[in-house]
């Protein structure tokens, strides 16, 4: 099977249609001025000009899914007895994510460690993940807020993708990254691509230089733990935060969920749905006590999860792919990359200079 290929611009739509013949294709579709990952059909217009407003995480980790249905059945002989019948569906359709960006694809690797590479893999996530092929489009230029190179990614990074596509003048250069990806190259719209390889790789290198890197060259932001633990720091930078969930719901690496039962009479279903640490109910305890009662404590958790706790647990890997959506779509322009660079101590004027000592007291996560 071919490792590389080429698709002419005018054939791209047919290529997506070809893919949708035996799989559900999630592609960035244009709706008004909004680009959204949606299940593709012939009525929709695919837009590859810029990253979609939402990440493709919904294809593998839907906003809400039924884990199982349950029915209470009364014993006709003994009315006090009830039995429960449970039906779970762990069969998932074949799917293709088309037009994700390298950051989006990277996001799924963050999920895999949590949902698959454990003693108790999640059958729902794993079921969808195994049946999904990820076809990623390299970015030609960064979007406002992008900082993928600062967290170990890049506009042409192929980690997490099965196929990598590079837009060239006349068409798209296609590279298979995994065995799963090679199957995609069998579509009739894909012609031989060897002659375009050099042009594509040159373009990939060019785009790399355009992305900003707020954390410096080492790609490992060293978080000052004393600054991280100081309430004053967070109160100062996060007073403006509205504590809405736009950042978590648009994040390709946020994987927290809630489980609820919805029941009517004797029938019901158990639902898993997205949740986020920016919501007060996320940590609200049965007693009424909330350990994260304020906005800045919630945001500290968001930064902590991505840049401290997750790296501690998974070998220094940062749980942020730098897609910049939380920055672009934040109602009050909270910039996570800026907050993290302050936490590194690179801006010593924080908290009116009183934290001078704290700034030097940095902790390297790699040492953990």
């Amino acid at each position, binding site marked *: 099977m071919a490792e590389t290929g080429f698709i002419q611009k005018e054939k791209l739509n047919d290529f997506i249609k070809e893919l949708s013949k035996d799989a559900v294709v999630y592609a960035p579709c244009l*709706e*008004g*001025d*909004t680009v*959204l990952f949606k299940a593709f059909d012939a009525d929709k217009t695919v837009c590859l*000009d*810029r990253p979609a*407003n*939402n990440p493709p995480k919904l294809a593998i980790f*839907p*906003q*809400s899914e039924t884990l199982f249905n349950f029915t209470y059945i009364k014993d006709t002989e003994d009315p006090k007895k009830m039995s429960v019948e449970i039906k779970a569906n762990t069969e998932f359709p074949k799917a293709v994510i088309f037009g994700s960006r390298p950051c989006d694809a990277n996001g799924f690797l963050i999920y895999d460690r949590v949902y698959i590479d454990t003693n108790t893999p999640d059958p729902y996530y794993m079921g969808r993940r195994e049946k999904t092929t990820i076809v990623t489009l390299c970015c030609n*230029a*960064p*979007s*406002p*807020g*992008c900082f993928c190179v600062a967290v170990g990614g890049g506009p042409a990074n192929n980690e997490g993708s099965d196929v990598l596509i590079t837009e060239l003048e006349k068409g798209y250069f296609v590279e298979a990254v995994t065995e799963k990806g090679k199957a995609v190259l069998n579509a009739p719209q894909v012609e031989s691509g060897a002659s375009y390889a050099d042009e594509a790789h040159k373009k990939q290198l060019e785009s790399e230089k355009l992305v900003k890197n707020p954390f410096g060259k080492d790609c490992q932001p060293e978080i000052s733990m004393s600054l991280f633990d100081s309430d004053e720091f967070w109160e*100062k930078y996060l*007073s*403006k935060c*509205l*504590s*809405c*969930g*736009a950042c*978590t*719901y*648009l994040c390709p690496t946020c994987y927290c969920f*809630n489980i*609820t039962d*919805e029941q009517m009479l004797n029938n019901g279903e158990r*639902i898993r*749905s997205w949740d986020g640490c920016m*919501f*007060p*109910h996320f940590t609200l305890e049965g007693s009424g006590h909330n350990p994260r009662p304020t906005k800045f404590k919630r945001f500290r958790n968001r930064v902590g999860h991505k840049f401290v706790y997750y790296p501690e647990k998974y070998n220094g890997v940062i749980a942020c792919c730098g897609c910049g959506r939380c*920055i672009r*779509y934040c*109602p*009050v*322009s*909270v*910039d996570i*990359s*800026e907050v993290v660079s302050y936490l590194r101590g690179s801006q010593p004027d924080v908290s*009116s200079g009183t934290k001078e000592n704290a700034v030097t007291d940095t902790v390297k996560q790699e040492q953990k």
Partner: protein
Amino acid sequence: MISQKLQDAIAGVSDKVDVVIAYQQGFDKLHATPCFMTTPEEIKNVIWNPLCVHNLTSYLPSLKKKKVAVLAKGCDSRTILQFIQEGLINRENVTIIGIPCSGVISVNKILQAINHEPVEDVSFDEKGNITVKTSKGEKTFSLQDVCPDKCKTCRFPTPIVYDVLVGDPIESNKTYDDAYADIKEFENKPIEERLKYWEGEFDRCIRCYACRNACPMCVCQDSCIAETRDPHWISQRATLSEKFMFHMIHALHLAGRCVECGECERVCPMNIPVNKLKRKINLDMKELYNYEPGVTPEDKPPMYTFNVDEVTIKEHKI
């Protein structure tokens, strides 16, 4: 420069308050961001230009116990009046720095016009034009073309209430009818089309609650019935009926209270025209109860009161 005058005005009041809420430069040249200042050294960071879109008065109810100075444009000042009507702030704790405003910029409209390219620089000229520089070149827009729709029909360019006014008052020649022309137009569409429109718009909703949290009048915040299990109004299913219901909760809880600052619509990451529903209700409030939110401090919101004989309500026959 207005920025300088503004900084002077802030310096003049800053020693009397605990915190000053103003604007500073955001993550790029196209974005301003709210800033909370507690020391005089920070005043130099304050900016004022048409990118200062946020309604900063939204933060006031959560800071009720503190002494706060806040920047308010004409539209934002209506929020303060509504807060006063509903007893949500202590007026004596708030110092209002009013700024007459001839219109702000819709960042979305600019981004659409420049194909969502990263912005390198932004500049403004005296005529109210904005020039945006990207790697593809420069583009100049007149404010009229890139302002949010609310600015095109603004009747309150000068704050209705303020303690300090920075700049000269601006008059508006717009009328009440101008402001609701689009609502009346929508009402004339066939009913099936209206339902289809809202279903299409609400279907995009991801229930991030940005519209709710940015809304100055949504004061329940952490106790919102959209999230509680008891009462259990809506489930966590991502279905159209649940999304629709959430927006109905938002709209109906704002009946006769919405000051039309448009924050709900501005912050929506899915570009849902959320404010339209509330403006429709406001139009009815005016017709039925001759009430407009946030215009005079003495008014009483129409849902808080009644007349024994409602002259405008006719009994409905089946």
